[in-house]
């Protein structure tokens, strides 16, 4: 393999990338829209239920319950009309309200049943509605001096790092997905380039020069990995992804770029024309997207998701950017990713090499 020949082919390929309108458009859109979407998303998670309360004589109970719970904020209002107006206008971000009758304490003391109104807006989820109804009853019982039958709420056992007040926002959850999308775009770009070379048979023209098949394949690997890495790193920088664990992320992006390059070489080898390349690339991309989407949801990914080639990449980015993980924490994921990258690259090398040999 001759480095000079490889660099000449790389230069030619980069020139072709610059001349490709489709590639330029999706690159431009990615660079503008992905960071735009990222920065427009909320940076914090609102995990508090703000409830308006109208009551007389229940101050100690209401205050005690509100102070004892991180997820509840109580706003006192003068009457039901004021509460309804606050709910309708969105003032104070109230999601619901509790209206106790003025004679509640006196009636309860005589054992009389009174009516408590729970006001909810139409978008309140059913479980919140149920919980607020239960809360109204609980406040009433506490006001009568009836303690709860269990200290369930007072002493919950928190497992793992308690993230209350410091939850991972949707913006941060989206970060690996955006980085991944950029890499996937490059799969398609490289596949198109390879397919065009095969379709127009420029590869045979290249191979009658001193360039060998190894030079050709190495150049495709360098171009694919280089372009994918550069764009993904640029997007990561624009969305503030390198704030923590930058060296780990650079390694993950490089391995991810190698992975998509191998896939792009395979997809390009099968491509007879633009549409076939598009279809083949999307067919490959859909299963590879699953780990990135599963990262948006809480909990452990299913076992079959964990064996997908992109799982190691997504997991590394998630753990480093949201939990500040170090090298030892992500080593298994990086090793898995490295294994898949080598496999994909080898597959790309063999498949494209054979395709070129048959021309």
């Amino acid at each position, binding site marked *: 393999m001759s480095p000079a020949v490889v660099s000449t082919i790389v230069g030619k390929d980069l020139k072709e990338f610059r001349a490709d309108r489709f590639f330029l458009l999706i690159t431009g859109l990615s660079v503008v829209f992905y960071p735009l979407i990222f920065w427009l998303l909320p940076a914090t998670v609102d995990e508090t239920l703000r409830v308006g309360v109208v009551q007389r004589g229940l101050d100690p109970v209401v205050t005690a319950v509100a102070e004892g719970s991180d997820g509840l904020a109580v706003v006192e209002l003068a009457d039901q009309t004021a509460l309804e107006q606050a709910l*309708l206008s969105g003032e104070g971000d109230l999601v619901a309200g509790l209206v106790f009758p003025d004679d509640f304490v006196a009636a309860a003391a005589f054992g009389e049943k009174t009516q408590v*109104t729970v006001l909810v807006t139409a978008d309140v989820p059913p479980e919140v509605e*149920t919980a607020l109804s239960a809360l109204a009853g*609980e406040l009433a019982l506490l006001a009568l001096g*009836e303690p709860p*039958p269990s200290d369930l709420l007072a002493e919950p056992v928190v497992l793992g790092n308690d993230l*209350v007040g410091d939850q991972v926002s949707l913006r941060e959850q989206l970060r690996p997905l955006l980085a991944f999308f950029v890499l996937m775009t490059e799969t398609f770009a490289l596949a198109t380039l390879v397919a065009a070379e095969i379709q127009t048979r420029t590869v045979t023209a290249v191979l009658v020069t001193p360039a060998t098949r190894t030079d050709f394949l190495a150049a495709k690997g360098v171009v694919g990995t280089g372009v994918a890495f550069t764009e993904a790193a640029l997007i990561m920088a624009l969305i503030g992804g390198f704030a923590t664990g930058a060296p780990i992320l650079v390694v993950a992006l490089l391995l991810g770029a190698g992975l998509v390059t191998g896939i792009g070489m395979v997809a390009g080898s099968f491509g007879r024309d633009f549409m076939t390349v598009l279809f083949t690339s999307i067919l490959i991309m859909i299963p590879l997207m699953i780990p990135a989407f599963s990262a948006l949801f*809480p909990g452990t990914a299913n076992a079959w998701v964990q064996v997908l080639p992109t799982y190691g990449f997504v997991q590394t980015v998630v753990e480093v950017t949201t939990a500040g993980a170090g090298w030892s924490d992500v080593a298994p994921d990086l090793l898995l990713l490295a294994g898949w990258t080598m496999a994909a690259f080898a597959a790309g090398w063999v498949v494209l090499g054979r395709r070129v040999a048959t021309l």
Partner: protein
Amino acid sequence: MNLRQAGNVLAKDLRLGPRSPVFLWVLALPIVFTFLITAVFGDLFAPPARLAVVDEGSSRITAALQQVDGIEVTVLDDSDAMTAAVEAHDYDAGLLLPAGTDEALASGQQTELELLVSGQSLASTRLVIGVTTLDELRAVAGSSPPVEVVVTTVGDQGWVPVEDRLLPFIVMYAVVIAGLFLPASSMVEERERRTLDALLITPVRMSEVLVGKGALGVILAVMMGWVTLALNGAFGSQPLAMTLFLLLGGVMMAELGLVVGSWAKDSNTLFTTVKGGALLVVAPVLFTLFPGLPQWIAQLFPTYYFLQPIYDMAVTGTTFSDHLVDLAACVAICLALIPAVSAMGRRLEQQMAATV
């Protein structure tokens, strides 16, 4: 124009179409998107509270919690497995109910119960699970509160859940891919492979080619529109009216597809144009998804006039007579596009004649 010749072109495309990846795309992707959007994104925007319960004594509390709307209750056998799952945030919380819990509560004893919460669960979710569980404990203990709780909804009663607001996106995707992209890519493919030249040597005229390819787009757009509406259970009480709007949407998209397909010189240019112009087609969907945006802006986009009636009839229960203005607008847009299709067809014919 000879409709029989146009029918021959349509028959040829129907026969050869399934060999094209775009054809498979048209059939498969709307179904995949329906699954992704309804199953995945519905939960993403409105995640339920997830509670794991280890019940060592067939407690009534477990059965009662399983009936609560909005809380997903999973019964596990092993408390260690529950602890590990809660720590991994597979559940927001875990509740261990030892044998004899119901009896202890009923006898008025203060009962030691353990509520495990995941460090990653939201404070509001912890509160919801905790208070709801406490309410069920009170019920088993027989200490019902001295209040009658009445729930009243205030404000917009017509609020639509986010998974329903995604319906126009799914329908739009099905209609656009089939109606717009299929005829456009078919035109470009025929030019790239020079089969269009061969076709035009026969008695078939360009107008008949355009009608045949457009008809294929319309048929598949309506068919895939039906499939997506059926998969989403959205036909409601107005299936005929919805079909009419799907048909007009299919015609509108097919006309746009023929314009773009006649203009684009290769697949690359076509895809770039479709991607670049996607916002114009997709824009009305964004206004349904985010009802807080000024809704009049959506009416500036042609796709609004077939998507909005379908959405309204499926989700808010409007009837055909409520959408006569939209119908008129749809028809007007479809008619206005005919000269554009015709002009692009003539231009293409001239270009091909010049290159022969």
